[in-house]
Structures are given as C-alpha cells and as structure tokens.
C-alpha cells in the first residue's frame, strides 16, 4: 500500500498510520490524476491505496506543501487557529485541506475534513483554518511542483501493465478489450477498482489475492454519459464524479452523497465496485434500485443488461458469471413529478457503516421502496409497494441484530420512514405509530 511505501521506503514519516483501514484519515495524501482534460485533486487514504493504482498520477504528502521556514497557508492557518494539539492527525488534515483548495470544492469545511478524525480538538481551529484559506493561491514552491506534475500527468499514458511478484500477479489493462480478454483468461482473478474494501481484506485480513485485475486504467470504464433516458456511469468512475452528475437530477440525494464514506473514500471508491462487491450494506445499491437502475454486464464480446434488484441473489451471490464483469451502471433520468426520499441511518452522521439505508421513489409508473441493511442483500419492499401499508414491512424483512443495530430498531425505523413517505401529511408519525 502507498502508506507503507511512503513511510518505509521513502522515509517520509510525516504521514501517519492511525487505523490502517481508511477510517481515520491520518494517512491522507493528495492525489493528482487525469480526469478528461483536467487534473483532478483529491485526498486519499494512503493506507488502503494500492501502489498499482498510482500509474499516471502524482502524490503529494505533508512534506511537499511547505516547510518550517515557509509554511503553506493552510499550515500557517492551522498554527494560528490552534488547530493541532497532539499533532498526530494534523498532517492528514493538512492534506485533506490542501486537496480541497486544489479541487476548488464548494462544500463546507466540515464535509471536506469529515474523513479525518481528531480526538484532541473539537475541530474548531481546523474548520476555521480551511474556511479562511480555501481560496488562497498555492505558494510558489508548491505551485512549481504541481505544475511539473500536471504536465507529465497530462502527457502520461497510464495502465497497460502487468506485475508478477512472489505472492501474486496484478494485471492493469487500459482498454475494455484487454480487460474482457484478461477476464476470460483469468476467471479466478479478483477485480479491483478503488480498493476501499479489498484494501481492508489485505491490511486487516492479511489476505494476499494471487491474481488481481485492476479496472483503474480502463478508459471506457471511466466514461460518464448522459442521454435523455439515462446517466451511464462506467464501472470505474469514482463516487466523487458520480455524485455531482446524479445530484443534477436528484438533489434529494445530496445528504446521501455527502455521507457516503468520506471525501477520501469517495475519491477512491467506485459505484461499480460498491455494486459488484455485493455487500448488503453498501450505500449505493438501495438508491440505485429505488431509481430503477440497471447494470450492463460484459463477458468477452457479449453484453447483457440486468435490473439491479435482480443482480443481488443472496448474500455473497450475484447474477454474475465467472468470467463476466460489471461494465456500467445505467440510472434513469428524473421523471416529471417524481418523488424521492433517501435516508441513511447510522450511529454517526459521516463515514459510518449504515444500519438502515432507505431509498423511496414514486413516479407515474409506480412506487419503488428499496432498503439496505435489512436483509442479506439490498432489496425492494415488495409487500409494502403493493399494499402501501408501512406496517407490512414485517412481511418483507426479517433483519438481523448486529453491532450496528437491533432487529427491532431496524424494523421500527424502516416503518417510520415508510410512513413518512407514504403518508407525508401525518403530523407526527412517531406518535401515531405508538398508538
């Protein structure tokens, strides 16, 4: 992973390891990569960022931004605002904030740094530091490094390589054709995109998958297309790009988007990976199911389309042949008069694994009520869709009790949210439910 390379091989020890699973942000660094004709700047968690995904990119860590003699404006602002106490998380915050400047983000400082944990301060100094400096130009010394990186990133032609090591092989095709043929030759290989989940199998599970095929460099999988009927997201499009496009039609999903992982996770993680992975608690699938999304699956030259709700068959089992892969996600455009409600229920607002994700959509065609966290797969509440009775949720789901929530709580919340959507005029749903 990138963090080990920085700390052990480069002896660049400003970037810290806090959790080794992409949840604390102490290892955040700035990633510069090509996105169309532009350079996209994002913070990423170096602890779960595979080195193999770095071709054609540039990485900037805390050592690059400034030094004690000439602090970067963000660094100076964190000092001035007393934004550090123990200081261990600080380099990661600095990276997230510099990435926010470079990426010209429009969201709040809180959103930009929600993927960075600080246990000492109450975040006040850090928030003020970013808000005060978000539009400040980069200092000349760092600007020069950025300019140099930008020119070679633009000139580079990333991907199209293979690595063979003692523990396994990595295939990094750059075209859809190569990906399809590699998939046919290596049906046993694990397909990896942003590695925000697979990375944890390695850093925590200590797994060493013998064969990996990366989607990172496949040009076709990075396409975002808009037609009158659909948004079409290539499977390797990171969430950071999916969100803004989707929000054009579905502004109700802003909260869903900003609470999905963190800025770091959204920069690495992909919608395609979130779906293909088959997790019962991924935040992407329930909304996509509610919107009536479908998948385009490819096997060699053969394409087929499957409705997303039919793709999830059972826990760990998807409608995906051994040598098939997800090529794109098709999301219908908004219908006139469409109503949409997306609710994420979790212990913490940001970057938390969902207990229940509810996504409800109603159009002239009908009602779609999708849930995550309620069953072994993301699923529609078909009984409720037919009856429009929120209390019928018990007929649709038998959720588990786990460390995130009890079965009773999941059912109760699902019912309350359904009632709010199906009976929007009820003044106090909670009160009625108890009666």
């Amino acid at each position, binding site marked *: 992973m990138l963090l*080990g390379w920085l700390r052990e091989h480069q*002896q660049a*020890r*400003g*970037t*810290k390891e*806090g*959790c080794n*699973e992409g*949840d*604390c942000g*102490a290892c955040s660094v700035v990633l510069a990569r090509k996105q169309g004709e532009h350079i996209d700047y994002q913070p990423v968690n170096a602890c779960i960022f595979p080195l193999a995904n770095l071709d054609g990119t540039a990485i900037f860590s805390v050592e690059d931004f400034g030094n*004690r003699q000439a*602090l970067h404006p963000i*660094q100076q602002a964190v*000092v001035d605002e*007393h934004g*550090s*106490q*123990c*200081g*261990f998380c*600080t*380099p990661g915050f*600095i990276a997230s904030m510099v990435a926010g400047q470079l990426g010209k983000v429009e969201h709040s400082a*809180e959103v930009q740094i*929600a993927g*960075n944990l600080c*246990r*000492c*301060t*109450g*975040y*006040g*100094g850090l*928030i003020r530091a970013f808000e005060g400096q978000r539009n400040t130009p980069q200092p000349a010394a760092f600007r020069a490094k950025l300019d140099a990186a930008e020119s070679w990133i633009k000139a580079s032609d990333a991907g199209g390589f293979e690595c063979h090591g003692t523990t396994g092989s990595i295939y990094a095709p750059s075209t859809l054709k190569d990906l399809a043929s590699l998939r046919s030759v290596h049906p046993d290989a694990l397909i990896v995109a942003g590695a925000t989940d697979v990375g944890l199998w390695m850093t*925590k599970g*200590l797994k060493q998958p013998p064969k990996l095929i990366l989607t990172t460099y496949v040009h076709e999988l990075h396409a975002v297309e808009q037609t009158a009927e659909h948004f079409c997201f290539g499977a390797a499009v990171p969430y950071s790009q999916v969100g803004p496009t989707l929000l054009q039609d579905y502004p109700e999903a802003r909260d869903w988007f900003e609470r999905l992982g963190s800025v770091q996770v959204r920069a690495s993680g992909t919608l395609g990976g979130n779906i293909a992975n088959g997790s019962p608690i991924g935040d992407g699938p329930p909304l996509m199911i509610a919107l009536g999304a479908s998948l385009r699956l490819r096997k060699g030259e053969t394409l087929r389309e499957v409705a997303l709700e039919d793709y999830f068959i059972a826990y760990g089992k998807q409608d995906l042949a051994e040598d098939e892969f997800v090529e794109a996600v098709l999301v219908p455009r908004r219908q006139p008069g469409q109503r949409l409600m997306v609710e994420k*229920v979790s*212990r*913490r*607002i*940001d*970057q938390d*694994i969902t*207990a229940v994700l509810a996504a409800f959509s109603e159009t002239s065609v009908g009602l779609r009520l999708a849930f995550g966290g309620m069953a072994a797969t993301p699923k529609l509440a078909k009984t409720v869709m037919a009856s429009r009775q929120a209390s019928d949720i018990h007929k649709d789901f038998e959720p588990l009790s786990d*460390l*995130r929530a*009890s079965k009773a*709580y999941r059912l*109760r*919340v699902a019912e309350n*949210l359904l009632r709010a959507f199906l009976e929007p005029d009820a*003044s*106090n749903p*909670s*009160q009625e*439910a*108890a*009666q």
Partner: protein
Amino acid sequence: MNQISKPEIANPLGRALEHDSAGQHVTGQALYCDDIREPAGCLHAAMGLGPAFPARIVAMDLDAVRQAPGVVAVFTAADIPGENNAGSVVHDEPLLASDQTSYAQQPLFVVAAETRDQARRAARLAKFEAEERPAAVTYDQIVERDEHVMPTLEVVTGDAEAALAKAQHKLEGRIEIGGQEHMYLEGQIALALPSPDGLRVVSSTQHPTEVQEMLGHLLELSSAEITVEVRRMGGAFGGKESQAAHTAMMATLAAYHTGRPVKLRLDRDDDMVTTGKRHDFRVDYRLGYDDSGRVYAGTFDLAARCGHSADLSAAVCDRAVFHSDNAYFIPEHRITSHRYRSNTVSNTAYRGFGGPQGMVAIERAMDQIAARLGKDPLDVRLENLYGRHGDIAPYGMQVKERVLEPLIRQLEVSADYRQRRAEIEAANQSAGRYRRGIALTPVKFGISFTISFLNQAGALLNIYKDGSILINHGGTEMGQGLYLKVAQVVAHQFGVPLDMVKISATRTDKVPNTSPTAASSGTDLNGAAALAACKTLKQRLTRFLQQKFETDALPLFKDGRVLIGFHHMSYAEMARAAWFARIPLSATGHFATPGIGWDAKTGKGRPFFYFAHGAAVSEVEIDTLTGANRVVRADLLHDVGQSINPAIDLGQIEGAYIQGMGWLTMEQLVFNDKGQLLTHAPSTYKIPTATDRPDVLNITLYDNKNPEATVHRSKAVGEPPFMLAISVHSALAHAISGLGGPGYWPDLDAPATAEEVLRCLDAANAAAV
C-alpha cells in the same frame, strides 16, 4: 534573542501562545515513536492473541509461527525471566497468559520478526486446543457472580434511610452508562533499545516511571539500569497511563532475548481488543426531596464493570463516588461502590477517571425531580448547589469556593437559556419530525490524585553559559500543551523570551520517581516543581549579584535583562558571569501538594486541593423517525482559574466537550456474549467528526483566580470540561420528555445512540396514552 527588545514578548505568562510543536505538527516533522528511524537490525514484534472466548488453554502449538517467513523468535510466559505481571496496582494480570485466559483474545505470546508485516502474519498461525470458560459480561451476569477486583467502598454521611423515610417525595431510578474507547490517534507503541550499558525504551506513555518499574520486575533489573523516554504522544486521554506498559514490556522481552532493538506498534484492532477502556457503570439511586426540589437524602449504588483485573479500578471508582454528588449538597447520603470483575478487557483510566460516570446519574435525577415538580431543572439545580443549604461533601471535605452560582447565572444570561427553553417547549408542541431540547448542567470536579502520595513532582532546570534555559520535568506531553505552559512559567521567572527556554523529552534518568501525567494535574504539579527549581537558582543568582555589585537590593529579571540597584546587565551576560564566578547553574525542584489526604477506611478526608468548575448549555435536535440526534448549539463557560495560556485552555475545553459528547451519544462499545469486543476499529466504533461539532459553539473562560496557591493561580483543565457534555444527554432527554405528558422524564441511558433515543421516544409516546 532579538525579541528581547520587545517587552510584550518577554513576558509570556497568560498569553494565547501557539503550541510549542505546532510548526512541527503541521509540517509532519514532529517525531512520534514510530517516526524515529529504526536502528540497524531492529526487529518488529506482534502480539499473539488467544481464543475468542475466555479459555482454559490445553495446548498451544506455535510451530507454524516459528517457521513463518522472517520470524526470529517467539516468546511466551515461560520466557519471562522475572515476574509475569502487567497489573500496576494489584499484581493480578499476567502480561502473557499461559494456562488460561480471562477474556476473549487475551495475548498469549509475542512474535519478533524482521518486518512488521511478517510478525503480524506469523502471529495468526498459532493453533490452540482450548476449553471455553464461562463468561460474565453483562451487569446481570457480573452481579450474580459477585466477584470483585477490589473491595467495596461505602461513604456515609448522616442516616440516609431514616431521612428518605421521612422525605416528602421519593425518587428511585437506574441508569446504565456505557464505556468509552480512548481512540488516541497514535496507537500503543514502544521501541526497546538494549545495550550492555543499560536498557533504553522509547514508550508512548503517560507514566514513564511505571513503565521503568514494570520492566524492572519483568527482567529483574534495577530501575537505575533502565531509562524510559517519551517526547510526545499522539493522544492518550488516560489510555496510556497503565496500559502503555504492556506494549513496552512485550517489546522489551523480545529485545532482552534477541539482544536487538525491537519495536512493537499495535495494529489498531489489536490495540482496541487488548487495552482497557472507560469503565461502564450501572447506578441505582434514590433521593428524597421536598416541593421546592430541595434534596434531603439519597443513596447511590454504583456498580462498575472493571474487566478481568484490578488495574486502576479502585481509584477510578473512588472518584466516581466523590463525584456522584457533582455540585449538590445532600445532607444525609450513602454512596456505595462495587467493583465487579467481568470477563472483558480490564477497564482503565479515561479522562475524568470515574467522575463523569458519577455525575451523569445525579444530573438525571435533578431532571427527574424538576419534571415531577413542574419546574425548570435549572431551578432545582440551583436550589441544591453547595453553599445554599450546606457545604460539606459526603466524604467530609468542605466545598469553600462559591463559584458555581455566579458562573451559572452568567451563563444563563449569555446563552439566553430561559428564553430559548420557553421557545423550544412551545415549538415542540407542534413539532413534526424534528424536536429540540435544551439543558444547562454544571460541573464541579475535584483536583488532585485521590491516591495522595501521587501528588508530587520533580523538575530539573539547567542554565547554560549562553543564558539558554533547559527545563525538564516528570510530566509528559500528549498534546495538552504541558511543555508550553511550564516553559511559559519558567520564562516568566527569568524575564526572558519564551524561545530561550527549551523543554526536552521526559526521561526517567533526568527526573526520577515521577507520577503519571494524569488527573489533570500536569501543570499544577510539574509547573510548581519547575517553579521550585527556578526559585533555587534565582536565590543563588541573587546572592551572586548582591556580592558582585555589593548591594542588598533584590534583582529584577525583566525583558531579558537583570536590574539590581543601579546596575543592570543582559540576562545572558549575567549567566556567563555567574559561571565565571563558579555558581552552580543547575537545580532540581520538587513539589508536593499541601494539606490533602483521605482515609478510605472512614471514607472521610480532604481528597482534593481545590475544585474546578464549569457549566454548559446544550441545545439538541432529534429526528423522531430514527432517533438520530445532533447538537445544534452549545455555550460553555469554564473556570480555569487565572489562565496560563488561554488558547491552550480553550482548546482543552472544546476538545473535552466534543469527546464527552461522543461518549454520551454515538460512541458505543459492543461486546458479544463471550465478552469479545465487536467494535474494535474506527469502522465500527464511531467518534465525533467535524460534522458532529455543534453549528454554534461558544466557549468562554470564567474570570476567576484560584484561591489556592497554584502556579499563576491557574486551575487544572484537562478533565473537568469533559463533563460539560452531560448537558447534551440532559437536553436529549428534554427533547423526548414532552411527548410523555406532564411530569414525564425518559429513562434515557448512555450512550444516547439513535436506537436508544428511538426506544425512549416510543416509551414516551406509550406513557402519554
């Protein structure tokens, strides 16, 4: 040095100066233990964890571990030359378990390998033949089994039962209060550096002396043969008071046997599974009160889940007892504290050290009394404040300072509490999905280690020929700004700019026999020790100057100069002149807090030097569909005495409040029925992020001087503001309460997760029907 000409720079005391390491923090140059370049040949260790249940170990097969790539050696309990003990107070906790484990995943062995990755992989290859032992995990289980890690403490004043019997109204209740993971961003780590000249260990510890002693017992070495060093920690919060020793001991055991440097940095999950947390408590309380809300009598039974060993549980539970009154006078009172053994990791120190758990229960009771009487809870709180009807705490100490009432009155106005409460209650009448709540709660927190002998500190002060000053003391830096505050004190003493004073890493070979940097006491104790050393050196310098200039006048150290009689010279010239005159320019200082002492047998005494105070108004919003909740505004007013550094103090208050808010809302430790921790990483254990910070957060220092002669008349600040967050819990209950009808108050436990809040919303709705 050129700053000497600026007098305002020359007196740093009381100024909002930046943290001494801030420039290093933001550039990534601040060195933490893991950032030190490993010496050649350094090995990396990993812990080998036991079965996922308390077990009798029938057989342990480590062959695969030994044969794994890169492994140099594997160590078990049998390889410990001295005592196999990691228990700091009671020797009841093996460093490495052998024939049986007391909790799930208790460490059984240590692997040393060429790389950290190799060590981690090898550690998972052990095979056990193990029999499951019964696990007591829940309160019902531990109370039924009735094993105690330390004796029960009872503190009694008056006849509580008789007074309860005659009380006009009686209240009975129970509250469960969850534990808390420290979640220091830098996990447990140590680097052991063996040499024929002695052992040196870099440890991320709040208590270097204890690490030194534990290593001595482990290896049968004397303390003089061991040096423990810590420059800074990446957060600690109590989690590196006793718990840091385990990591240091394991690394050192491997270094002892291999003769090579060994680093052990725990993976986050291993850290969370094997190190102690805040104690969780169940409190059963009874109070007798009258129509005015005045409390006459009470009984509090505090059941603490201590984990499998004693660790610091006795002192933690003592402090819970001392704070179960919080700010309120209860004339006839009985407080009982049971310290139950459970088959879970051994709970330990955590910011507040039992105090927060004690306070949560009495604050719930104040709210309940107010609800039943139809009063504003603030009025019930004011009615019962120390000083209104009495000022002797149940443990016999007089509460002298009358800070809280004026402090609360000031906050009540500045936060516009009454008006906002009225508006919120009116709005809740017609609320839809979202309801709001508001509460004002006070904090009175006792300052001093309740183990009286710990209230001492040492310092070493060197003045060099060029006038530069090096101050070293027993306190450790974990981000709280202790080094800076002490440097400010020393710079002020010599009238020099702050940059002439340097503080070096805390080391047991410079200042010996230190107490942990804990109990918020860092500046009080180490600052005072540094002052004592300053005084000694200034006396020597005064005599030297008086002789040199043949005067009886006293010198004035100011603005980088020394003035005596009609003479003056630069401070640096004086230092050099003193050296020529063969004046010793190095001194030690020592401080012992005067006048404190407490007898556990009688339950009476003066455990504290003084109290720190504060109060907070929190306003919350809850989602009645999901129970999700957040703090929308908080106003904090806190008493730090006369601040040495307002920026540092404000930072402590803000951070403590947010950490307390996390404890009482989203942070939930979940154990399964075998006592295995399921929330063992930040993926599942959620501490507040930036978006959880209240939209409006006003923090003000209360204008007050410590009546006790502390350094600069300041007050301790690390822990007390943590408990300002109890106002969040109280406000959440307030938001729910209106649904239950007149007199209703929800039995909201802590943490008030979305699930817990929704449970209480449903219960309130049911009660109203």
